[in-house]
């Protein structure tokens, strides 16, 4: 009888430990870099995003400017203005970024290399009050099993989704889903773009980041120094 009790206790403990392991928050903490930098976004099946005719016209104009070597005509990052969300993480010029998770699981910070931009994500279930649209917007998030799901809205329409000038409106809603892969060495991000003013239907893309070696530090980037821009 004592023998069976011990087995029962051991089995219960193992079950609890297993449940605990399953419930543990994935550790995204570290420095990450996009595996394949993205210049022009595509959908999950590799096709062009479903722009509506008005947005297509804007996008065509930007592509023409790019072809003419005149990026400065539309891309404010050449004035050191932020790339905005979600472009910074996967842009060819974005550089590595770090993710920091707090101990109480109330917030996550994305610290980008590019011009020292940061993005705060609150996991408290309530979006903080903000003034107007911004470059990195207001993001609330929650863990769904081993996936971190972020809801993002309130983005400037003056920035683009990628370096090719893919437009969006201020009504864009992003749903970013992060999930570790490759035994924690990779981080997959699926992004859903929902913006009826720009796209004929919601669409998704996927980006993969690789974890840089432990001890990697984010280097200080001062865009104004790098591009010799004088703001005043």
């Amino acid at each position, binding site marked *: 009888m004592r023998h069976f009790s011990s087995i029962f206790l051991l089995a219960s403990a193992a079950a609890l430990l297993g449940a605990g392991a399953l419930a543990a928050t994935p550790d995204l*903490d570290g420095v990450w870099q996009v595996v394949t930098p993205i210049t022009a976004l595509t959908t999950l099946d590799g096709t062009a995003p479903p722009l509506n005719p008005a947005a297509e016209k804007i996008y065509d104009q930007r592509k023409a400017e790019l072809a003419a070597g005149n990026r400065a005509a539309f891309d404010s990052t050449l*004035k*050191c203005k932020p790339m905005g969300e979600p472009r910074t993480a996967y842009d060819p010029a974005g550089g590595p970024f770090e993710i920091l998770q*707090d101990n109480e699981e109330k917030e996550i*910070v994305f610290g980008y290399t590019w011009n*020292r931009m940061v993005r705060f994500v609150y996991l408290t279930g309530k979006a903080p009050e903000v*003034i107007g649209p911004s470059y990195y917007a207001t993001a609330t998030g929650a863990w769904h099993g081993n996936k971190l799901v972020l809801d993002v809205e309130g983005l*400037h329409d003056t920035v683009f989704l990628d370096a090719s000038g893919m437009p969006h409106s201020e009504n864009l809603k992003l749903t970013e889903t992060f999930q570790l892969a490759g035994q924690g060495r990779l981080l997959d991000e699926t992004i859903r773009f929902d913006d009826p003013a720009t796209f004929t239907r919601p669409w998704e893309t996927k980006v993969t980041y690789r974890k840089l070696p432990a001890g990697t530090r984010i280097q200080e980037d001062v865009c104004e120094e790098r591009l*010799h821009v004088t703001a005043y």
Partner: protein
Amino acid sequence: MRQQCLPLATLLLLVGAAWAPVAYAQVTPTTPDQLSGIPEGFLPTAKTPDFSPRGTPPGYKVNPDMHDFTASYIEGTGGGGPPGGAPGGAPPGGAPPGGAPPNVGASNQNNCYPSFFGGPYATHMLSSPGRLLVVNEFNHTARRIYIGGSHVAGGKPTFMGDSIGHWDGNALVTDTINLKEMPGVDLRERWTKLPNGSIQDVAIQYDAAGHPEGAASTSVFVWRPDISYVEDVCEDFAEAFGAGYGGNPSSK
């Protein structure tokens, strides 16, 4: 559709509002027990204007983990201290108190360069394994302190410098070198969480020969659980005020 640019009057009001909590934070004197455990060399001088954070806001509970600084703060500054100024406390767009090398300072802040001295905007800290991230909203200034790390050999000077730290009891002792705005300076700081949740940062500078330069200075980051991060983009302010851009042909 929401407005893309705030009217000038609104911007000025916001700047004014940002100053208000700083003044409020400087009302009550620092008590000796708040400084206990700080080595003699770190004690502020009698000339240091006294201040202390306000009490714990109602409805909020201080995180009892003394090694966890994750929270939002408004910085009050003790002032005084070493030549070259204290961390924090520089007015927006102004040079660090005590002056700065001729090649840096106010003009660089006006050009949207980061400043180690931050500004009177909110500060947000996040403690993570092996790191403390200190973000001042002013011009998206991010300072990283590597806990248990070592200085980068042959590192180049940067605006935030190379900061490492270790725990001495409940005090985070940090050492910062390669500060672009303070060439040759070794800045040593002692960060402690106060019982009311605020963070006290006592700093002293050492010169290249290892001699302390002046007395220590004290800053207190007043815990503000009621605020959250607000994006500040210096480059937008420059444009909003009609200053425009120059210097880079591709930006025109």
